[in-house]
């Protein structure tokens, strides 16, 4: 925290975040029964990322915290993404090699 007097978030913000989360949850639920083809998962993930984002920013106060904390919070997710990316590049390119006649 940048100051010794902690940030006190207005109650209204908390309830707004809560409402967002609830709406998000039931939205994902409802959307899952619609057929978007391959888009189903991206849509669900987009909603989840928004939900996680508001939790991190408001409930976890990252919005009011030092740059350093933000970097750590973001760093974790970015690194996770690299783990996925570099693992999947193996699985996705496995049958590019025409070894099967």
């Amino acid at each position, binding site marked *: 925290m940048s100051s010794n007097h902690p940030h006190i978030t207005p109650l209204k913000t908390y309830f707004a975040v809560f409402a967002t989360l609830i709406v998000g949850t039931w939205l994902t639920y409802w959307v899952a029964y619609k057929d978007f083809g391959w888009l189903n998962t991206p849509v669900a993930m987009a909603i989840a990322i928004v939900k996680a984002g508001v939790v991190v920013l408001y409930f976890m106060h990252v919005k009011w915290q030092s740059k350093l904390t933000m970097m750590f919070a973001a760093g974790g997710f970015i690194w996770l993404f690299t783990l996925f990316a570099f693992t999947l590049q193996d699985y996705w*390119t496995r049958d*590019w*090699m025409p070894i099967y006649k």
Partner: protein
Amino acid sequence: MSSTVATPAAEPRTNYLNVDYGWKSWVFSTDHKRIAIMYLITIAFMILVGGSFAILVRLELATPAGDLLQSETYNKIFTMHGVVMVFFFLIPGVPAVLGNFLVPIMIGAKDLAFPKINLLSYYVFLVGILLTLTAAAMGGIDTGWTFYTPYSSTYSNGQVALAAVAVFITGFSSILTGLNFVVTIHKMRAPGMTWFRMPLFIWAHYATSLIILLSTPVVAITIVLVALERLFHVGVFDPTYGGDPVLFQHMFWFYSHPAVYIMILPAMGVISELISAFSKKRVFGYPVVAFSSLAIAVIGFFVWGHHMFVTGQSTYAGVVFSVITMLVAVPSAIKVFNWVSTMYKGDVWMTTPMCFAIAFIGLFTVGGLTGIFLGTMGLDIHMHDTYFVVAHFHYVMVGGMVTAFWGGLHFWWPKMFGRMYPENMGRVSAAIIFIGFNMTFFPQFILGYMGMPRRYHFYPEEWQVLNLLSTAGATLLGIGYLLPMVYLPWSLKFGKVASKNPWGAKGLEWETDSPPTTFNFDKVPVVTEEAYAYPEGARHQPEAKVV
């Protein structure tokens, strides 16, 4: 800096060693220096354990027929050798001993940010060791330190689940240490200690801690999955249920490649300190060396697939991992050249630590360059899982990290215990270690190219000569390692009393007492100059040569 003359005070000042007596004052201590000492003792014990296994391996391989040990026993022995050396000696080696002792002092802090967590990490480590030794006593494990599935999860008869739990627990110990370092380095620096005034040892530990935080949890969960699979046959890596054994390798190497930089980066930090102190010079290209640590840490994350070129990974993924592997060699090269340049026009004093530092540069260069052999795929097809790999990693791990560890231990020994070690003994053992090491591991490069696979209990007769040479070298190396284990403890009582700064070196640790007081400094130091600010024309003062 005040007097550097060694005057054994009539009434020794209180320091962290004599401030309290009794076993409780040690086992419940949250003083980072005492914890470092406890780590040191534990790790010294583990290198003896791991080294004894190594000697058994070498004795067995003196003859092509597996006549000394049963195949199963041999497999258990090299596995225990690898597990003990990697998880219980190499990874905690420099950070938990030298880092624990020095990180707070070097940045002018009273302690690490979370002293209780530091103590906890020691006990977690101890539990890990005890579980491993239990697993060894209950029949051992024979999976190799890499725990490849489905052998480890389905077919092995060893105590895999127990060993997995032990490794899991040990991982937490290193996470806790890394977390402590990151927060301490960010938040506890003394006034005036800006990032670019920090010693390179601190930069190296910062980079190392980031790797620990980001990679260790992944191996932890992987190991949990192996244990679950072993106990309940859940099928995550079991091909009979459609599991992919190669996935295990991805998850394992996502940790274990960065882990090799966990091992070498702190050692590189030590070398930067040693070269600078004994050349009386600022490290050449300080910011470049600092950033190269971070570069190694970051790039080192994306090369793990070079352990899997022939294991069923996609051909194209191999290309990606290979090119990044080539890139990660560059920052290491930069470091080597900067160390060498630091010596140029210095005032070079060949003490024991400096001997070790120079040995490190040579051995690490050979080890690193042979890493390039393995990183180029066309060659790795042939070299993978041969003794070439074994020689490569002993050159970087033993020739590199262990050599640096000895160098650092000698360098800071007077600071840690207030006594000098016997200098000539030190130089002799450094020479023995250097010769013994090369004799042990150089022949293995040739064996590897000839095609001798690793983890082999039997081997064709035409390779006996080289193997015998290696075994002979290992004996010499063992003697070289035993010497310091004798004369260092001896010096605790009989060594010359050390002054505050026996080497006339720069750095906050040399401005406080030897050994330091509990809170490291009488009053918080204020830093006004950059690291290694040796004056023009600096020379090693004759009076500083207490040895």
